[in-house]
């Protein structure tokens, strides 16, 4: 019985903690989309649309779906980095939980549930701001939420697993500088990957954010075709992200257990 309810205890404690600390994160989850949509979508978009780019839709609509998936990646990755390291190294509340009936698996599943809730909230907010900017219709915007959340979860579980192998937080800047930021720039968020040099296109095809962006775009913009999106099937993107999330979850459980139950 407790095996099913224990992860919920983790979610509950995260909620209690979040109630105390939410202010900073909520501001960034409102300010970030506004800044990006204003700069990239509206301002840059006006230039793009005046040029000879033939996307078939306004650039703002194109970039908004990409940004939603990218926001999933960024928030998922950052939820898998600092908070996880805080859990076993800085605040050490993971070790505290383990002195109660809670087990490592409960922490892993509980954090997964909590991240799902948080990502859904942040990305839905992003979608609504996008609608307010006139980037998307409400329906398609909301349809792009689940694929973006899935993209975030895939990053979250893998980054969480990786975090448990780090000695301290100095690795995080490397992760963001050489992992997350390049993905953000070159995985189809801001331009179709067909714009990349030929030799880089397969690289982009292999990256997880590309599949998140494609999935969000194909779902939110029905009937979208090249050059807006590739001709790859939906199920491929979906499988990629689900497998990535599952592998990450499995590794996170194993590695975290090693770390907190030496």
């Amino acid at each position, binding site marked *: 019985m407790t095996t099913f309810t224990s992860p919920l205890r983790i979610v*509950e404690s995260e909620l209690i903690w979040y109630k105390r600390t939410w202010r900073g994160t909520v501001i960034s989850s409102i300010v970030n989309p506004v800044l990006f949509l204003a700069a990239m979508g509206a301002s840059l978009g006006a230039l793009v649309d005046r040029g000879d780019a033939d996307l078939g839709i306004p650039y703002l609509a194109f970039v908004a779906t990409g940004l939603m998936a990218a926001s999933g990646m960024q928030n998922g990755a950052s939820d898998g980095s600092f908070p996880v390291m805080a859990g076993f190294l800085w605040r050490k*509340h993971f070790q505290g*939980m383990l002195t109660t009936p809670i087990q490592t698996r409960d922490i892993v599943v509980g954090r997964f549930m909590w991240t799902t809730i948080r990502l859904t909230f942040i990305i839905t907010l992003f979608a609504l701001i996008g609608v307010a900017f006139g980037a998307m219709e409400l329906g398609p915007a909301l349809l792009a939420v689940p694929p973006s959340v899935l993209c975030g979860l895939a990053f979250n579980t893998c980054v969480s697993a990786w975090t448990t192998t780090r000695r301290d937080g100095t690795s995080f800047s490397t992760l963001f500088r050489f992992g997350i930021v390049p993905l953000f720039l070159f995985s189809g968020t801001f331009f179709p990957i067909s714009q990349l040099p030929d030799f880089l296109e397969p690289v982009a095809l292999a990256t997880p954010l590309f599949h998140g962006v494609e999935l969000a775009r194909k779902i939110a913009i029905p009937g979208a075709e090249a050059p807006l999106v590739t001709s790859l099937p939906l199920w491929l993107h979906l499988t990629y992200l689900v497998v990535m999330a599952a592998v990450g979850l499995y590794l996170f459980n194993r590695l975290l257990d090693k770390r907190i139950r030496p």
Partner: protein
Amino acid sequence: MSETLVEARGLTKKFGDFTAVDAVDFDIHKGEAFGFLGPNGAGKTSTMKMITTVSPITDGKLTVFGLDPAAQGRDIRRRIGVVPQEDNLDQELTVSENLYVYGRYHDMSRSEINPRIEELLEFAQLSDRKDSRVEPLSGGMKRRLTIARSLINEPDLVILDEPTTGLDPQARHLLWDRLYRLKQEGATLIITTHYMDEAEQLCDRLVVMDKGKIVAEGSPRGLIEQYAPREVLELRFADDDKDQAVMKIDGVAARSEVLADRVLLYTDNADDTQIALHERGVFPEQILVRRSSLEDVFLRLTGRSLID
């Protein structure tokens, strides 16, 4: 004989090539306060982590409440309370939220937890800080809160890993007083410490650990009687005189220990020994006479002082 709550036989913990706990045997009975005394790195914390099922055992046998930590960890943890060596309270949460969260981890309902919180805050003398955040509390208050938190599930066994390390004397005494009360209410306590006065005050029975092994076992008084003569003279010398004095005092007492800063003489009669010193022409700068303590037991057993 009362019920055995923890039984260890040949209990061993290895980390790679390093043996942290080396085939130790002990029994902990219901209602007693049992101590693990030893310096840092003796294997006390590793032993605690195995008992709390947080760290898997490498070899030997361990049962807690007759249960196997590897297979029934959850059932064991339901019945224990743990005060870890490092504070892991949620600094951002309030005092009562910290207790509430742990009550929920133990699957207690809100209506069970709330009266329990009131009770525990009173016990920990923190009732007036109920809604304040943890972060600004003093070290002693945080420790008392951690102890209150460990009691939320009304545990049959409370495990305290160095409960007073880092506290000032006043805070320590207040904490000892609380632990003493807990003991009187019939709780079973396991306490690790490297303070001998703490072990003497709180423990009914204890084991002395060194380098992963148990080197002695008994009651504090019993250990002192067994391993150390009744009284100790602590002699301090001016630097120049020390070497010469050490030669002269040979054989004046039952046993002597030469430490970096002082010389200890163990004797059954301090007055006689003092007279004997004068007769030999030994005049230390300072002489302190005291009853022998667990520190002396430790010194005798390991050749090292407890806190380096």
